[in-house]
Every structure is written in structure tokens, then in C-alpha cells.
């Protein structure tokens, strides 16, 4: 995989598709962020992408993101400068300017928002992220494992409110910030986990922007050639085609602010006669056979793709009769540590599975 060196207007389609893929069913539609980034790139030109190793050790790296309900953002579009307001507020607290923009979450809406910010501010974006996918809470990042604090964190809305948080740990940051998003109308733009270049080199996952772009490109090329994209994704990304079939039932329920549920998928073609269950909480977290044997579990990635088009399907839109590919991708090795599995392993989400790497299942 060739690293991406700059993001041009024509790259945004691939990035939005790849971002939706790494959303693993959650994270929201990257479409709004894609349109914003396209507008900014049209106005100011391509966004330079730099490797984390190219950062000076004392450079200031700032991740920006949307926090809250992506559904809200599809209706209440941003004013446009909220993320920059959050960034400027954080710079004021720190008393210095940011040198590069960072992506906290490579999946969903948050895969494209930072590109819009980088384009609008003229800053480069780092080829990396904090999750390598989408996760629902802000402490679920590699920076937490590396002991980097989410604070000082700033949040901004379209009305001009800008709020700074200083909390005792990253889980507390999540709790306070979540309630502020509700007051902001369900979603806010945030800047957090300010890091030096030296910290970023140790605390972040690498190559995420290149990966997103590459996935989008593969899906689009295979679709254009009328081929099932799963073969090439498996070959080039070290992924696994876990299953192909029809969604036979989706059972949804809400507990603790999470959209939880289970989907039953019945096999087609070479998977005929078999059935699997997918458990989700905003994102797909566990795939298991009828007798409960795990096929893949969080933090490994479980992606649901439309069988005909390869387009990723979210847990919110998935419904009876959808024809799907269930695709698995190994997570970043950092998540497979004890600390990583404490943060995002199957037991954290309440499933009775011990984590086993997807390639060993």
C-alpha cells in the first residue's frame, strides 16, 4: 500500500467510502464531512498528509472531531467554523499554535471532518489516528493506553459557545463532554488530546489515512469491474471474508444511550445452509455462529458490506432482506494488549467472549 502524500479533491470519494468501511457499522455517514472537505479543498487546495515521524518532537498535534449523534448532524448541519473555534480555544489555553491536525477516529463521520479543518486552516494532517476504526466513546483511543490526557479539551457549537474541560481522567472527560453535547443540541465539535510530536510518535496508530483511501479505492475499482470486492480486500488488507448472506432478522433495543441489538444472517452461495449472529452497539462488535462460537470480536473490525455494490451498511440502516458480505479485519496490534482489551475488548461491552485474534478463529 502506497502512503497518501496529499489529499486532493478527487480523493474525497474514496476517503468517504473507506471511512464508512472502518466505521464498522457506526460512526455516522462521512458524507457531510466529505462535502465540507471538498469545499475547503476547492478554496485552498490539496491537504498535505505527513507521517507522524516527520513531526518535530516539540510540534503541537491536535485531534479534532465531532462528538454526539451523527443523525443530528445530518439534520443540523454545522455553521462551518465550529471545529476551528474549538481548535483556536484549545490553542488559547495552551498558549501556542497547532502545527498539524490529527484524526481521532478513522471510521465514520470523523474520518472526514479533520480533513475539512486541515484544509480550512492550511495545516497538514497526520497519516494516523487514535482508533484505527470507529468506537463509541472518547477514551477508547490509543492515546489513553499511552497515558496521554484528553484534556485540556474544548467543545464548540454553532452559537459561539466554547467550553474548556479539565477532568481527572479520560473516562470522566467522556462523561462530562457527553452531557454537554446534549445541551449543544445533540452534537458538538471538539479539539482534545493535544500532543507533542514526541508523544504522537508513541501514542498513535499509523497509516490510517492511507488505509482509508486504499480501501475506498479498492471497493470502487472492484465495483466498477463488477467484481465482489471481498476477494481483493482479503488479499491486500490481510482481511477475512467471514460470511455472505441475507439479513433475516434485526432485533434492536436501547440501553444506556446505546443502540444495541442482534442481527441474524443466513448464508448464500458458498455459505448456504449456515447462519450467523452479529451483535452490535452502535458498531458491530461480535460475529458468532449458531452455537455461539466466535468468528470475530471487538477490537477486530467487523464490517458489513452490500453484496452487490460493496457499499458499507450501518447498524442503523441495516434491515430485513439486505444481502451482505460480513468482512473481518485484524485491529491494530496495540488493541491486543491487556490495557487495550480492558478499554474495548468484548467483555467491556458485556459479551461473554474472551478475545481471540480474528486470524486464530
Amino acid at each position, binding site marked *: 500500500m502506497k502512503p497518501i502524500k496529499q489529499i486532493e479533491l478527487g480523493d474525497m470519494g474514496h476517503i468517504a467510502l473507506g471511512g464508512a468501511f472502518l466505521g464498522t457499522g457506526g460512526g455516522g455517514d462521512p458524507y457531510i464531512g466529505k*462535502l465540507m472537505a471538498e469545499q475547503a479543498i476547492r478554496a485552498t487546495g490539496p491537504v498535505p498528509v505527513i507521517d507522524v515521524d516527520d513531526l518535530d518532537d516539540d510540534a503541537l498535534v491536535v485531534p479534532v472531531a465531532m462528538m454526539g449523534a451523527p443523525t443530528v448532524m445530518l439534520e*443540523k448541519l454545522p455553521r462551518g467554523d465550529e471545529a476551528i473555534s474549538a481548535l483556536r480555544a484549545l490553542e488559547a489555553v495552551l498558549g501556542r499554535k497547532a502545527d498539524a491536525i490529527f484524526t481521532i477516529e478513522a471510521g465514520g463521520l470523523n474520518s472526514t471532518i479533520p480533513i475539512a479543518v486541515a484544509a480550512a486552516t492550511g495545516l497538514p494532517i497526520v497519516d494516523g489516528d487514535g482508533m484505527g476504526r470507529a468506537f463509541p466513546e472518547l477514551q477508547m483511543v490509543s492515546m489513553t493506553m499511552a497515558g496521554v490526557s484528553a484534556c485540556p479539551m474544548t467543545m464548540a457549537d454553532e452559537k459561539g459557545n466554547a467550553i474548556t474541560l479539565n477532568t481527572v481522567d479520560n473516562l470522566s472527560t467522556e462523561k462530562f463532554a457527553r452531557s454537554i453535547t446534549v445541551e449543544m443540541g445533540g452534537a458538538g465539535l471538539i479539539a482534545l488530546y493535544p500532543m507533542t510530536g514526541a508523544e504522537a510518535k508513541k501514542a498513535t496508530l499509523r497509516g490510517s489515512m492511507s488505509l482509508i483511501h486504499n480501501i475506498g479505492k479498492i471497493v470502487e475499482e472492484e465495483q466498477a469491474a463488477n467484481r465482489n470486492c471481498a476477494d481483493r480486500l482479503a488479499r491486500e488488507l490481510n482481511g477475512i471474508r467471514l460470511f455472505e448472506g441475507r439479513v433475516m432478522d434485526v432485533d434492536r433495543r436501547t440501553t444506556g*444511550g446505546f443502540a444495541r441489538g442482534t442481527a441474524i444472517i443466513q448464508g448464500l452461495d458458498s455459505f448456504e445452509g449456515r447462519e450467523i449472529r452479529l451483535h452490535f452497539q452502535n458498531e458491530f462488535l461480535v460475529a458468532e455462529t449458531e452455537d455461539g462460537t466466535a468468528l470475530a470480536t471487538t477490537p477486530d473490525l467487523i464490517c458489513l458490506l452490500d453484496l*452487490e455494490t460493496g457499499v458499507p*451498511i450501518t447498524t442503523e440502516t441495516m434491515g430485513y432482506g439486505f444481502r451482505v458480505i460480513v468482512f473481518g479485519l485484524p485491529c491494530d496490534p496495540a488493541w491486543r494488549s491487556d490495557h487495550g482489551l480492558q478499554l474495548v475488548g468484548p467483555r467491556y461491552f458485556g459479551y461473554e467472549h474472551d478475545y481471540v485474534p480474528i486470524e486464530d478463529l
Partner: protein
Amino acid sequence: MIRIGVDVGGTNTDAVMMDGDKILAGVKSPTTEDVMGGVAESITKVLDQSGVPAAQVAAVMIGTTHFVNAVVERQHMVRTAAVRLCLPAAQCLPPMVDWPDDIREAVGGKFWLAKGGHEFDGREINALDMTELDGIAAEIGAAGINTIAISSIFSPVNDAMERQAMAQFKKRLPDANFTLSSEIGRLGILERENAAIMNASLRALSAKTVQAFTKALAQVGLTCPYYITQNDGTLMNRDFVQAYPVLTFASGPTNSMRGASFLSGESDAIVVDIGGTTTDVGALVKGFPRQASTTVDVGGVRTNFRMPDVYSIALGGGTIVAGEGDSMTVGPRSVGYRILQDALVFGGDTLTTTDVVSALGLADVGDTSKLAGLDKAHLENAKARIDEMVHNAVERMRVSPDPIPILAVGGGSILMPDTMGDLNVIRPEYYSVANAVGAAIGQISGEVDRIFSLEKTTREEALAEARTEATQKAITAGAHPDSIELLDQEDVPLAYLPGGATRIRLKVVGSMNG
């Protein structure tokens, strides 16, 4: 009730006469340039053939692709002012931001943003500013624009601001046409606003079309009311279609599937509609087409209409069979509407799928003596390929392992075998006018789609409230109160948000009054 169903297609305008559940006659006429000539002709023919006096016809139901074709061809759209109530939010992506240039130009590309809009929980983002709206009205008037689309953030939750802004604009622009996004679309402001702008820009065409339908009916001596079918197979009266032409965009495939269901008496089935160049395969669930999951582009514009999930392949009665042996191909090219000149069986010199089934004695069309001398092994090879193509498409659309039937409709359905894998094929009587039958059996509906807070009510109470609201809408639209039943409901909890906000979509249908 005696009624006429009409389907205005690209090639043919079909009409059926129905009395209750009985079909009295079915006819086909060529579609005319002005549309109305073909409608008048097919209605005249079906009156003749059935012997029913015009005075006994209680209603005419028309399915038409007129409005969606206008958008696809960028024709007949008028300049429209898009007004979004949103400030200070939503400045980053203005109305029509993601439209292809040619269609944005077709509607003039003019927009205004104003203070207003609601949060998801009903709080105001900002109050309306009447002075600001007066200024916008003056600018719209000065630009000579007479058609206005108004959208407001979270208007599916609260439509008050869109209504108040319309009332304010009317003071200065008393003759303007208005489309409110809350009346058309669902959550997702860009998609809903897109639909509202397209709808507004088609208002002039819809007024003209409604008048022309009225005239065509009067011309053939019909004085009864008429209705237009909408995306979900339910009916709109003439005032409604004049106000909401976009709601007809997907009515074609819907009518075909609903017609197939009615003709066969099956409510859960796969429908295969074979025309001259393409085959559309869809699935019926409880008598209604299964809906597509993704956003749907109409003429390059993103919308969130609910459209039937249809899988199309390049196979029809005019599809060309070329090559020999292992290199034999079926399609994708087709002789299309030239089948009556080009196919072997009609005296032409191109081997088509219709020739293949005729030569094998599976269909009786044209002059089979012209097919003598074709190699039997080659024909059987081609037929096997045709069956395989349809079978693959059917398997893709199949929603359960249960042996549900396949309903074959459309002029090209002579290509279908009697069984396909473990499924039986039913080719109902009047299969070639299934679309017109689908129009004739249209029902009246009412729909609710918005976010409910479950903090003070239970899920069941919220669903009941939604159902009452939808029922009221259906009755207002002309449904008989006693016939109303629940068609579809789903509730999706909003992710990433505490407070039990849940989005409920619910639809009821009932039969027409009278």
C-alpha cells in the same frame, strides 16, 4: 366500484377497466409525445372493449413517470428560490451544494439562509426574524421568482417555522407557489431540502399536467375524479399531485409489483418484470414492494425517498444472442422497440431471446417458419443462459428460504420457464398490463416519521401516538376510517445520545372512500 387504471410508460400507455376485484378489459396504445393523446386513446379503447358506459366509471387512477422524466431530462423545471431557516447553523453547506451543475442551472441555483430552525428536542436554534424574511421576500420578488421551497432544521420534528415563514412571504408575494420540506421529506436536511426544491421547480409542470389529464378525461366523456399513484402504491388526488409531484418518482416499479400481486393473489413473492431491454426484479412483502435501504439519486440529486428495491439486468425480449459455442453471449445489447422489424421471427435478421423461446416451442409469436434451420443445441444453450441470468437475479432478491412464487409480468415474460430452482413461476392473466392494474388498486395512506422523546412516555405510548397521527392523515387524504390498517412501523433509537430519543416511522393504509 367501477374504475379505470392507466399506466403511462415510455413506449406504451396501458389501460384496464375494473369492477371491484374483477378485470373487465385491458388494452395497450402507443404513448404520444403530448402524453394526453395516448391516455385519451387507451381510455376510449378500454371503454369500448368493456362496454361500460363512461357515466358508470367512478374513478380513474393514473400511474405516470412524467415528473421523474422531467428531472432526468432537465426539462420543464422552473426557477426556484430555496430558503433555509437555520442560522447560525448550517452555513457551511448551502442548498443544492451537491447537485450536478446542469440541474442546478435548470432551477436557477438561487438560495437564501435565514435565522431559525429547531434542535432535535424541539428547542429553537434561533427565533424567526420577520424583518429579515421581508428583505428576502423583496429580493425573491425582484429576481422575478414565483416558486419558493422552504426548509428548516428539524422541521419533521416541528414544522411551525416553515409555516410562519410561508405566511410572512405571502404578505409580499401573494401569488407565489410554496413547497415546505416538512410536508415531503424525512430527517436529513440536504436530502429533504433537495426533494422540496425539485418539487417546487415542478409545480408549473404539475399544474399543466393536472389540467391536461382533466381535459383528456373530459374529452372521452369522463366526469369522475381521478388520482395519481405515488411511490408507495397509494393514491393522491389532483390537488395533492399538483402540490407534490415528486411523490410520483418511483411509482412505475411499485405499480408493476402491486399489479402482479393483485393479479396472482400472492402477497409474498418475487416479481420479475421483463420488458424489451431490461428485466426488473423486486420483492413483495405483505403485498407491498420491499424498500431500498440506501439514499437514492434522482437525476444525480441525492434524496431519501423510500423507493422499491429493484435489481435490474440487461435482459429482455429484444436482447441479442450473439456468438457461437463457448463464446455465445446473451446481451447486453438489445434491438429494443425495433423488435417487430429486427427479430428473426418477425422477418428481420437478428437472433433475439424471443426467437430462442419461439424456436424451442416455448412461446407462440410471429412466423416460426422463419426460425427453421437454427441449431437446436445452440438454442438450448442460449435458453439455459437466459434462465441462469434470471435465476441469479431472483436469488439476489429472495428474502426467505420459503418456497414463495415468482410472478412474471411484462411483455417479455414469455422468456420465463415454468419453474426456477425450487420456485414456481406464475404468469397471471393480464400480465402485460400489470402496471395499469397496480394503479387501479391503489390505496390511501398516512405516514409519520419523527423523533419522539421516551423520557416521559413509554415506547408503546409513543407508537400509539404516531399511529393516531398517521390514521388522521390517511382520513384527511380520503381513506375510509373503518378500513385503515397498519402497513409498516419501525423505531430506531438514536445512537450516541442519552435521554431515550427514538425515531419512529409508521405508515397506515386504507381503501378509498366510496
